[in-house]
């Protein structure tokens, strides 16, 4: 219970700070909307089938704007040494990871919740909310977990803004491929059996990313 109380304390602290400034969320949402609008102009001229290319557009918006939030996640902790304040406390490093990963997952999910209806509106497509939302949440989960770990790595380097995408995107390729294929399958109303292999891959990568990041986090944040 103490572990969960500490995780909750970290999540609530991040939410309180974000609600006061709204810096991260506003940047993420604006960036995601810009991506949608730019792609919308490009595709309108070409007359493409948005149910085919839409999944790629969505995940470009999700991952690139998600990385903005992930980048700030530990940079803000480092600015006044507050991460050290947390590490001085008798808190399991796994609880710190889970707290930060949960906050990041929530911020990215809020950005996605704003982005998805706008995508539907701009492209005039009906959204198959189920199974689309579970697929997107599962993709976001793995992305946020690995992103949290690598954000902690990048925050310790001089080129942290550049380092995070360089580290995160190559590692996330299998997860993002599965998320894009599943999202595409949902937009094209394909049967689950057609995409079940990608679903399995997504689940496996979610589990791997969560477990690896949970165990490795301690060695990343401690000197």
């Amino acid at each position, binding site marked *: 219970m*103490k572990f969960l*109380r*500490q995780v*909750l*304390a*970290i999540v*609530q*602290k991040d939410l*309180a*700070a974000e609600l*006061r*400034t709204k810096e991260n969320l506003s940047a993420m949402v604006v960036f995601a909307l810009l991506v949608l609008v730019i792609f919308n102009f490009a595709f309108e001229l070409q007359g493409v089938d948005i149910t085919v290319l839409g999944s790629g557009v969505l995940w470009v918006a999700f991952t690139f704007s998600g990385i903005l939030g992930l980048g700030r996640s530990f940079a*803000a902790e480092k*600015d*006044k*040494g*507050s991460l*050290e*304040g*947390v*590490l*001085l*406390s*008798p*808190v*399991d490093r796994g609880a710190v990871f889970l707290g930060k990963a949960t906050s990041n997952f929530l911020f990215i999910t809020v950005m996605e919740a704003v982005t998805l209806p706008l995508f539907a509106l701009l492209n005039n497509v009906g959204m198959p909310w189920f199974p689309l939302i579970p697929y997107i949440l599962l993709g976001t989960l793995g992305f946020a977990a690995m992103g949290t770990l690598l954000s902690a790595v990048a925050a310790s380097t001089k080129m942290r803004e550049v380092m995070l995408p360089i580290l995160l995107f190559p590692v996330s390729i299998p997860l993002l491929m599965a998320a894009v294929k599943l999202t595409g399958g949902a937009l094209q109303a394909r049967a689950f059996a057609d995409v079940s292999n990608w679903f399995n891959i997504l689940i496996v990568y979610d589990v791997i990313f969560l477990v690896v990041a949970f165990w490795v986090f301690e060695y990343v944040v*401690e*000197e």
Partner: protein
Amino acid sequence: MSETLIAVERLDKTFGARWALRDVTFNVAQGEIVALVGPNGAGKTTLLRIIGTLARPNAGQIRIGKIPLAEHPNSARAAIGFVGHQTFMYDDLTAWENLNFYARLYDLPNISQRIRQVAARVGIENRLNDVTRTLSRGLQQRLTIARMLLHEPAVLLLDEPYTGLDQVAADLLDQIMADAKPEGRAVLFSTHDLERGLAICDRAIVLKAGRVVHDLSRGAWRNLAGFMEIYARVLEERK
């Protein structure tokens, strides 16, 4: 006989090929206030960070009371209060929210009452609802000291704690360190303010190039001038 609350034994720390600490051994007893002094780069901050569990040594052992630091870091952390070069505070949270967050990490009971107590002790009880970024450096340092006292630690570690404090706040910090004696805490602090540091400490440990070169109890120096004589010799040997 007072219990040893900080026991450091044969501590080594290197950064690459450079020795930051070498064969450092000393104890700090309950109710004892010990100053760490030495020139820049002597290893004071590294030593405090290792005892505070923020860095790991290459060799050696540390005990906080009876707790071996390497084996039970979280139990040791619960007994340590630390003030470092940075405030450890979140700029966008209020003073109250910051203290509440740390109190929850320490899993303290009666958090509201405890926050009010420590805030009153450091004189920020009227500023608890202010966002931290709006507080002056001195008030932020007081908030940091409140955070250090929040969980009533047995061991206080302070790295250059007078930085940014005005005269009133520095006197307050002296009082908190002096109170640590009857409260049965052990205090280990680093300082370059020798006049203030020596006035309050029971012992002074002089570090040079990562080694303990002097461990002097109060009787070893009669006044500041007496200590400065010893310290000047240490600095001279450095050249």
